[in-house]
């Protein structure tokens, strides 16, 4: 194995940007998932494209695996942990530029990978815009990283395509070439495009390919993204959030379908009591207290009216949704378990406070998530509960998050297995469950579109033809196989 040396790295990234401190290297050797621990050789901090291109060139010459990381920790899915020895972590978290926000075109253009949600939200808000963002991402989570992960977002109304809200991107492929996807491809450099009115917004293209779709879900195996644009939405003038509670998940799913179909809400998601408690409770007793007051399932929806006759709009929305809910046999409420709907809304539009909400209860959390259709969800919840029971995990404390996506064509379903990492028995159970639950869930209709960790290969290898095609593309953009080798099917 050809190993890159620190001095070779320093020539490319600068000596102060090469980290070989063992504590720091150890922190990258594993994460809160159960993937095996492999320590990287170095961490290379980068802050511009040229450096990254040089780094990739060096990696090719020395057969050095590169693992791009843009978010700060803690990491959860194993994608930032090397799967091969001799790796260099490419730390993009210091790239903090947000180049341009355009309210007319509703876009935040050229966002570097180190920008977190907490940093971006106020910047776009100044322009009267907001992001379609995931549910309370952790404070250190990279916006670009989230978009590249195809993380589900909380406004299905504005989630037209599974790739949203990503726009154009700039990427350095494993060949060392720089490429821009979407409208950013050109002609011209970014400033020239902007002079012509371009905003690096359109994601698709150029021409008969949309390579951003191959960068998403790739866990850094296809290229190192140096920036991405994000389409934004308007901040409403008036809002009216509310809950619908039920013990019958199917009823809430039907309500969600119609609310999305008729474009009656912006933020819309479903949580079970455990997840609501995890989001809002602070401390064990508060958690148990809150849990005791919550209904089994909670649908949250927020109506929004913009500056165009907002009062008329809001009155109409309230009346129309009221009529709809009545037809569906459900009722709305303004508070649940002492949490008001506006409070809930405010919470889900911010990154998580520390500690990260998923870790607040027990210190650890293993997520199992997939996509499915709404009819299958009750059965999937049952399948997961059965699997948990069989494994000896206390299913009652499992969080369930259902996020309709792509304007209701499917749902992201997420089981949050809260556990105490210090409790090795419980940790062992959760680890086993994270793998053993996969097959029963697939049998019940789960599509693991974003496989991570130990189960990833098992999931990927079910589709030989698709894997071959992905490998064919991988061979084009990373023929030397230096980008995060060992992930997915690579």
């Amino acid at each position, binding site marked *: 194995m050809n190993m890159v040396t620190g001095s070779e790295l320093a020539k490319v990234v600068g000596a102060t940007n090469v980290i070989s401190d063992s504590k720091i290297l150890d922190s990258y050797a594993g994460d809160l998932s159960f993937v095996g621990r492999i320590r990287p050789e170095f961490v290379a901090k980068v802050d511009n494209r040229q450096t990254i291109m040089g780094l990739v060139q060096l990696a090719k010459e020395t057969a050095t695996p590169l693992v791009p990381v843009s978010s700060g920790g803690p990491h959860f899915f194993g994608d930032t942990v090397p799967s091969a020895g001799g790796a260099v972590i490419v730390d993009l978290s210091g790239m903090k530029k947000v180049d341009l926000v355009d309210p007319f075109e509703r876009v935040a253009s050229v966002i570097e990978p180190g920008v977190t949600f907490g940093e971006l939200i106020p910047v776009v808000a100044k322009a009267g815009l907001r992001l379609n963002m995931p549910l309370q991402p952790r404070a250190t989570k990279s916006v670009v990283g989230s978009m590249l992960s195809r993380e589900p977002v909380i406004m299905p109304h504005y989630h037209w395509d599974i790739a949203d809200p990503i726009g154009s991107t700039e990427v350095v492929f494993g060949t060392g070439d720089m490429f821009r996807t979407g409208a950013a491809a050109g002609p011209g450099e970014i400033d020239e495009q902007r002079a012509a*009115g371009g905003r690096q917004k359109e994601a698709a293209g150029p021409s*008969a*390919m949309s390579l951003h779709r191959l960068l998403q879900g790739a866990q850094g195996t296809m290229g190192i993204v140096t920036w991405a644009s994000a389409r934004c939405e308007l901040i409403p003038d008036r809002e009216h959030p509310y809950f619908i509670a039920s013990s019958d998940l199917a009823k809430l799913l039907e309500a969600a379908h119609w609310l999305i179909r008729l474009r009656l809400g912006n933020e819309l998601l479903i949580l079970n009591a455990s997840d609501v408690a995890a989001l809002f409770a602070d401390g064990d007793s508060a958690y148990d207290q809150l849990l005791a007051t919550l209904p089994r399932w909670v649908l949250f929806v927020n109506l929004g009216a913009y500056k165009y006759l907002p009062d008329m709009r809001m009155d109409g929305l309230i009346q129309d949704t009221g009529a709809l809910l009545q037809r569906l046999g459900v009722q709305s409420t303004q508070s649940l378990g002492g949490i008001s709907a506006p409070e809930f809304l405010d919470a889900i539009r911010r990154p998580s406070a520390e500690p990260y909400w998923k870790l607040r209860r027990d210190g650890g959390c293993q997520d199992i998530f997939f996509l499915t259709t709404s009819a299958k969800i009750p059965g999937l919840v049952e399948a997961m509960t059965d699997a948990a029971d069989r494994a000896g995990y206390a299913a009652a404390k499992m969080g369930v998050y259902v996020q309709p996506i792509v304007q209701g064509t499917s749902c992201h379903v997420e089981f949050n297995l809260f556990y105490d990492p210090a409790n090795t028995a419980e940790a062992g159970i959760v680890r086993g469950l994270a793998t053993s639950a996969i097959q029963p869930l697939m049998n019940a*209709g789960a599509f693991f579109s974003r496989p991570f960790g130990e189960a990833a290969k098992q999931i990927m290898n079910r589709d030989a033809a698709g894997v071959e*095609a992905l490998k064919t593309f991988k061979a084009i953009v990373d023929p030397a196989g230096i980008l995060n080798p060992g992930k997915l099917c690579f």
Partner: protein
Amino acid sequence: MALSKEQYQAFEAIVGPENISDDPVDLDAWAWRSGQAAMAQDFKPRFEAILMPASPAEVQSIVRLCNKTGVQFKASSTGWGVYCDAGGPGCVKLDLRRMNRVIEINEENMYAVVEPYVIHAQLQAELMKRGLCCNVNGAGGVTSAMPLAAHEGIGHMSGTCSISERNLLALEWVTPEGEIIQTGSLAALGEWFCADGPGPSLRGIIRGNVVPLGGLGVYTKAAVKIYHWAGPPTMEVKGASPNYVMQNPGNFLLRYLSWPTEEGRSLGIQKLGESEIAFGIMGFNPNMVAANVATSNEEELVLAEQYSKEIVGPGFCVVLMGNSPRDFEYKKAVLEQIIKDTGAASLKAVEEGDVHDAFVWRFIRVTASIRETMRGTGVFGGEVFGTDCYRVMSNFIQHSRVDKQDLIDRGLVYPDNTDPFITSLEQGQLAHSEVLLRWTPAPDVAEAAMEYVGKSNANAVNGHYGLPHHLFNDFQHDFFGPHTSNYTYWLRRIKKSFDPNGVSEASNHITAKDV
């Protein structure tokens, strides 16, 4: 290079003798090209045979045979576009007419699954019965409903029903090497709701703003995202061809609005998008409106003159659909407000009565594109620009219209004014623009039209406006490639990797030359 007897028999063994022909009668039925894009009318090269497979298995067998024999193939559904023609000898046509089923309509999860020869009018009609609707290509309801067949997949309802690149869910693809790939949830579960994953999405190599125009295998089924329809299950339509009039169910309204300046129109489109009131929006110019409404060219001349007196500048057509009486009242009120706030003029001639109702239904079913493009002069073309932010789309075509005026001044194209065509997508998040020309298919005119496209391309490069969609061959791609992230290199690598034997005919896509 005619097929050898053995080759013909081998293809015949796959599809059956009644579904293959190499007779000149059947070949010339496909070979006549009346003129589209920038070219004179003439016969194009003949396909060597017409094959009509009935299933993905037959398509796969044909493709594999092509790989063995070196015969090229080009698949199409209804086959309207220039890119459905043969580029040269040695190619067979896969006419997918026999693959015409609506496989599934999933109301709960808002998608439909279609085979290639289901046309939009058929799918829309089936969806309407269930309170649903779909995007319909701007070219019209007679085009394939599969979001992989038409060149772009942008249409009159893309303001709310998005565009094909983004409506595409799972698909079934016979690759140029003859592998059958099912994407996403289809491979994993046999269900159609998601094309993406596991991991990276193969949608990324299957299409972009445009499709590979026959050059990357054959798509045999695809799921397409569908939307809510607040109209009746079946639209009652009275009258006889060509004068059909829908019985307005009471929750549809159409207006043609115009502004003195492009800035005014931009503001109008911005407000329409932000307010989310439009069901459909399409940036016709006065001549297109006249062509749409008129049932003959004579009538079009009369209406064009009449409308031009009332229309004050660049404009667009907007259709409102109310999901409820309250919703409809709101949308109408906002439209009035926007008209007032932006100083728009509304074309009275189409505001009410049969003219209005007929226009609404033509808009939704998209039946008048042929009137707007082909009827007048027999040929239409021009430049078909990109998909991106509104302002860059608008800026580019303001540039291009100057070159169109030059052609008009020289008598080389029909003087239907230079108001560019622009449309707003996904409630104003994106836009698409075109400058269309109509002309008589004479060689000197075709030459001038080619010159115009060349100028447009140069404008796009020099002005940094973006990549047009009208790139139909290696030459045009190579003109843009060096200025556009060298995309041609990557597109060719994809082509070469997935079609090593070069059998998926790519004269309108990009060939793997130099790879």
